[in-house]
């Protein structure tokens, strides 16, 4: 069997081009489908990984701002379930990064008698200019839809992330936080990591502490300390927890194109299978 010189060279070039293009396609696929070990479904897992990666990370009190649909009360538990700190929404406190907090929201005129106990898993911190830490809190907004879902004993999970500046949507300061509703099978931590830096995981459901029986000791979690500050209303950077306006002053000082975003998790509900024999 004899082959011509041209056919042999052509066969070699075709093989080279095919192999090179196939390698490029495989590399791109592998870059987009990396394995992401963290998940939003297991409470505390992301914090545990962070502690393992950065065991000597200094403690930092990150300001967190809780906002309700309109007005209401926010009760924090400072080191003990019996040590309550009552504030009015929107409420801003300092929370330790790497800890999980449970607090109570109530007094909402849209939902009379409703008491909910959401949790915040604070994953990371911001890096504001010195002396202006209180101007850059992590905003956590509870919408009416989320509260109604929690009152129906469904679980709402949100991952709040800081957008990457080069990928941030060009929104005006004061624009509401972007909320993307992802399907139940999505990994919110991975979605937040692709869009920016995950800051906190917020979960809200319908479980409340009971007046009788056990189980309340674990309900409040590790009861990490919180810091509340009394601000001077005349100060230009003061943020008073009792202010009922939106976080306009906060978002006005934030750099354009670096807005907070939220990933809204699946609304999970238990299902019941029943059968009669």
């Amino acid at each position: 069997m004899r082959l011509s010189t041209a056919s042999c060279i052509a066969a070699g070039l075709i093989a080279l081009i095919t192999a090179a293009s196939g390698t490029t396609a495989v590399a791109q696929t592998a870059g987009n489908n990396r394995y992401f070990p963290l998940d939003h479904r297991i409470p505390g897992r992301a914090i545990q990984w962070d502690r393992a990666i950065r065991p000597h990370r200094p403690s930092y009190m990150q300001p967190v701002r809780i906002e309700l649909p309109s007005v209401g009360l926010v009760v924090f538990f400072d080191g003990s379930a019996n040590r309550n700190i009552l504030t009015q929404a929107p409420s801003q406190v300092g929370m330790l990064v790497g800890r999980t907090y449970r607090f109570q929201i109530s007094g909402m005129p849209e939902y009379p008698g409703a008491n909910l106990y959401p949790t915040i898993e604070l994953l990371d911190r911001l890096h504001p200019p010195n002396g202006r830490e209180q101007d850059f809190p992590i905003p956590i907004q509870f919408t009416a839809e989320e509260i109604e879902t929690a009152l129906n004993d469904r679980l709402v999970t949100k991952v709040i992330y800081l957008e990457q500046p080069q990928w941030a949507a060009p929104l005006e300061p004061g624009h509401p936080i972007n909320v993307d509703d992802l399907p139940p099978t999505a990994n919110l931590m991975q979605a937040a990591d692709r869009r920016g830096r995950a800051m906190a995981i917020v979960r809200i459901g319908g479980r409340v502490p009971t007046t009788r029986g056990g189980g309340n000791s674990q309900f409040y979690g590790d009861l990490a300390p919180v810091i509340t500050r009394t601000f001077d209303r005349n100060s230009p950077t003061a943020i008073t927890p009792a202010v009922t306006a939106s976080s306009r002053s906060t978002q006005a000082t934030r750099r354009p194109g670096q807005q907070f975003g939220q990933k809204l998790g699946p609304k999970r509900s238990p299902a019941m299978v029943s059968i009669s024999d």
Partner: protein
Amino acid sequence: MKLYFLALGTLLVVCVGCAHDGQQVFHKNEYHAPPAAMLAGPGPMVAGPGPGVMGMGRGGRVYGAAPAYPAQSTQVRFLGPDGMYVGWKIGDGFAENQLVAPGRYNFPQGSMYRLKVAGIPGRDALVLYPTLAVYPSHPTTEAYLAHNSIPLRITDEDLDQIETNNFVTKVIYLPDPKFQDLAIAGVEELVSTRLDPSLDPVHEADRRGTIMAVLRVGNMDLEMSAPAVLGASGVEQAGNVVSVNGDLGEHAPPVAIGGIDAKGSGMPGSPLVSGPLPPGHPASMMPWGQPRSSTPIGLVGPPHLPYGRPASLKSHTVRNLSDVDLPKPVDHMLIDVRHEPGISLPAPVKHIEYLEQHPVYGPNEISYPPAGY
């Protein structure tokens, strides 16, 4: 012929060069690792820390060992019928009327409880003694149980089935994400129309998600007066029965009647669910059949067969048939860094010439200030 071998050699070099580690051709650069929940365990069907566990430093905490909110209790919310009284078994007696539906209570996990349901509106004479199996939290249900209660409702259809000598089993589970749409569509309580009677609701719920609680209701009367037992002296012996009535302000926590895989529960045993030992079992003795020996890959070992029988097991072989394709560790690391555009700065100063010139004046060119001397 030489050109033929040249072309063949070129093709071989190209293929080998692009598939230098043998993965690009056959595996298409796909890598697989277990999900995060499975990394916390030593292997399939085994709980506890394992090879995927990373130490947490001096604190000694490991991944998966200490969740942020250890939901060691499950909050059960009895939705109805409204006005129904719920009690539970405490030792030899019952704590009656502990809750009035709608009400909620935190039950410790991993145990089975005997409830007492009475005072159902419209069925005043009906007293039921269902069992409630509260499953331990799983990584998939941990967040839900820490933030939500489990709704539990006994419907009129359930009661009709029970009064006609039928046995009703309710399984409350959290569906897997892939079944979540189906679960949300049927989140209401369904009885017998939800599943074919030939299906086991526990198995079906376990297939669809993670079980959190199982309620089994029949019409057996557990407080039926027993025939009088007369002692040798002819005196009726009174039992040491404790009774607590919630209407009188008396409350007592429920006492588990066993683990959720206790004998008689009708529930298949699960290696992940151990629960407390059944009543009467010596605490120092291992339960019958519980594996105690470990294997190198984390699977359970042979079952323990106590009670004095001679050892019969001569061989126990566990074969790991999983495909293992682990790359070799990196021995030399090379990182190429390049700026675009590159760094270009002027040459640093290496010579400085400093010259001071002072004016020189003659004798008649200087004018001193008046007070200068």
